[in-house]
């Protein structure tokens, strides 16, 4: 039984040409995560389309428009389980006009799979995907050199891709990069070890996903507890109960800890930590709990409980790497709603410092209009302080979104520098 098994979320970015859909289909099929009726459905479709054999890529078909056009438009989530772990795949489209979907899929991922066609090596799309993975600080990157069957399973071709990748990625902040030569079409090194590449000593993809160390992916140092809501039952048995409900964003909180409530600055001690009817000694990220304090102080949604000896910054001016998600361009005069943990304030984009050309990764300082899919560094001013950490140190307290009050749409996602 999967009792102590962890959940690993990974993202795959790419287009049909890279073999992304085939790879996902292969992972699901070879790990026996596909049901007979699903297999039957795609076997029929494969026949109708005149394909030889079963086209595994059809497993990832989604909405009607996507089927008709043979593309992925939006993020789709897929699931499979092995005796070692449960996996959530955020399957995202790879074209430049879907950068926003890649960013979305990457935001919660522990690992990213980047597919490179062994025949073509590192191309612009590879660079873009790697850049997004590093920008979103995905802790583990697995570069799958695919279509090895089309280069005669040649070690030389594989090494060439590794060299190309390392050359351009040296400037990026990816902590853990691995390379695996695969053929998604034939199943080499996906679930089962390939018999055609004896020169490769490493593990197949699935084994890699099953064993990557992910316990350290969440910040366990800085205790941050954004308050979601206050629980006041006012029932017979719990007349004086006042619990602060939330999910530990990072770090560990223990009963008896000296805490400070931000932004008010009131201090107290943790009296109890509860999960339903269980009393806990400690709570760590990403646990959802409720906390009571020794003192009766005024706390509401948007406040953050932290350890007194380790506080985040409370600031109104932040520098952010911003990915624009909406087809309405950014307007420097608009007041946006900024959402950060459970906190919500108004904000304006004060200055656009530079914009990335996300194909060449060059900084642009001339044309500074922010349009959909643009990634830029900006300065934002908020009406009231946000309790922030840098995104690099803390994904949960270093991320923001902007909402346009005229449409209520989420228009931008930002990583605090």
């Amino acid at each position, binding site marked *: 039984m999967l009792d102590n098994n962890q959940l690993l979320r990974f993202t795959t970015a790419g287009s049909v040409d890279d073999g992304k859909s085939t790879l996902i289909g292969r992972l699901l099929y070879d790990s026996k995560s596909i*049901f007979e009726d699903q297999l039957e459905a795609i076997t029929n479709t494969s026949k109708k389309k005149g394909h030889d054999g079963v086209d595994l890529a059809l497993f990832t078909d989604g909405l009607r428009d996507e089927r008709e056009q043979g593309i992925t438009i939006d993020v789709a989530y*897929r699931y499979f389980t092995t005796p070692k772990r449960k996996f959530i795949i955020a399957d995202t489209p790879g074209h430049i006009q879907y950068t926003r979907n890649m960013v*979305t899929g990457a935001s919660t991922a522990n690992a990213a799979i980047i597919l490179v066609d062994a025949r073509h090596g590192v191309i612009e799309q590879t660079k873009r995907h790697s850049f997004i993975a590093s920008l979103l600080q995905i802790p583990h990157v697995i570069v799958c050199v695919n279509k090895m069957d089309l280069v005669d399973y040649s070690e030389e071709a594989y090494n060439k891709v590794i060299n190309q990748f390392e050359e351009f990625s040296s400037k990026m902040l990816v902590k853990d990069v691995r390379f695996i030569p695969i053929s998604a079409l034939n199943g080499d090194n996906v679930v089962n070890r390939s018999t055609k590449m004896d020169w490769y000593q490493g593990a197949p993809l699935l084994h890699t996903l099953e064993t990557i160390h992910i316990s350290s992916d969440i910040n366990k140092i800085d205790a941050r507890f954004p308050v979601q809501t206050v629980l006041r039952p006012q029932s017979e048995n719990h007349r004086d109960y006042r619990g602060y409900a939330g999910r530990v964003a990072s770090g560990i909180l223990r009963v008896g800890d000296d805490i400070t409530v931000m932004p008010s600055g009131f201090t107290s001690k943790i009296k109890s930590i509860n999960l339903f009817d269980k009393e806990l000694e400690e709570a760590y990220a990403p646990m959802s709990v409720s906390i009571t304090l020794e003192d009766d102080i005024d706390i509401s949604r948007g406040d953050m409980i932290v350890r007194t000896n380790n506080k985040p910054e409370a600031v109104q001016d932040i520098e952010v790497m911003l990915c624009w998600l909406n087809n309405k361009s950014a307007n420097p005069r608009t007041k946006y709603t900024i959402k950060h943990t459970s906190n919500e304030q108004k904000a304006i984009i004060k200055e656009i410092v530079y914009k990335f050309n996300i194909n060449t990764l060059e900084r642009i300082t001339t044309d500074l209009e922010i349009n959909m899919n643009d990634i830029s560094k900006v300065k934002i001013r908020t009406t009231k302080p946000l309790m922030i950490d840098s995104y690099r140190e803390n994904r949960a307290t270093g991320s923001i979104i902007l909402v346009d009050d005229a449409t*209520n749409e989420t228009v931008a*996602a930002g990583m605090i520098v």
Partner: protein
Amino acid sequence: MSKYYLNYLDELESEAIFILREVWAQFQNPVILFSGGKDSILVTHLAKKAFYPAKIPFPLMHVDTGHNFPETIQFRDDIIKEFGVELIVGSVQEAIDDGRVAEEKGKSATRNALQITTLLDAIETNKVDCAIGGGRRDEEKARAKERFFSHRDDFGQWDPKNQRPELWNIFNGKHFQGEHFRAFPISNWTEMDVWNYIKRENIAIPSLYYAHEREVVWRQDSWIPNSEFLVLEDHEEIVTKKIRFRTLGDITITGGIESDADTLAKIAEEVSGMRQTERGNRTDDKRSESAMEDRKRQGYF
């Protein structure tokens, strides 16, 4: 040293509790859509955990097609009493009687699609701004694209190509008057996760999920239960079988499977060996490749 990571069930639980609290904090008048099926029971159970020691702060809303398993209705009423929550019922029968919807004709007629009108009516009359559902992304390909917080326009419609991006754990439930949201706290759970969790927490579920003797007829590759609504075809024959249901919907369209699994442990074991998807026994999804997507666009669960 103790470990500082959660196992996958605890992580899914924590995520669902987070979503439920976010719904409570961001909306004025949320409800839980309660069908009496295992997924909505699970959501209700998670809501109890999320707000304990306070009561579940959401009413349960049941869209009643009139074609129910009596066991489901009994279970619903028991849960209302046990948790001390309010029940809102939207009745498909009333909508038919009022002439707002017309019953489907023919042998495979169901009231499945008719639920859309009743659901949207109930949402509107009760001024619901967020309906929490037990939908899961692993169920069906259109559901694989759902957000945790899913926007519906003022006609209750879903626009799958124009969904709000959802990043990290920041959820945007802002909406205009007349629009509403659907929230799916167990989006990331699979059928197997649901059963493993129900088993671990020993959650009460309707007896229909356990193997039992029942009068059934073989139709569209599954055992359809005998009921007052069943119209027998010439070649069909009612037999008694030991079956259980893998999902619960209308009594007219929910097929059972032959099974001896009469405990949660046996059910979980049986499900882990299943080679068919759970909705494979639902005739409503067999109509076309985009049957679910089409219904969802109009406002279905």
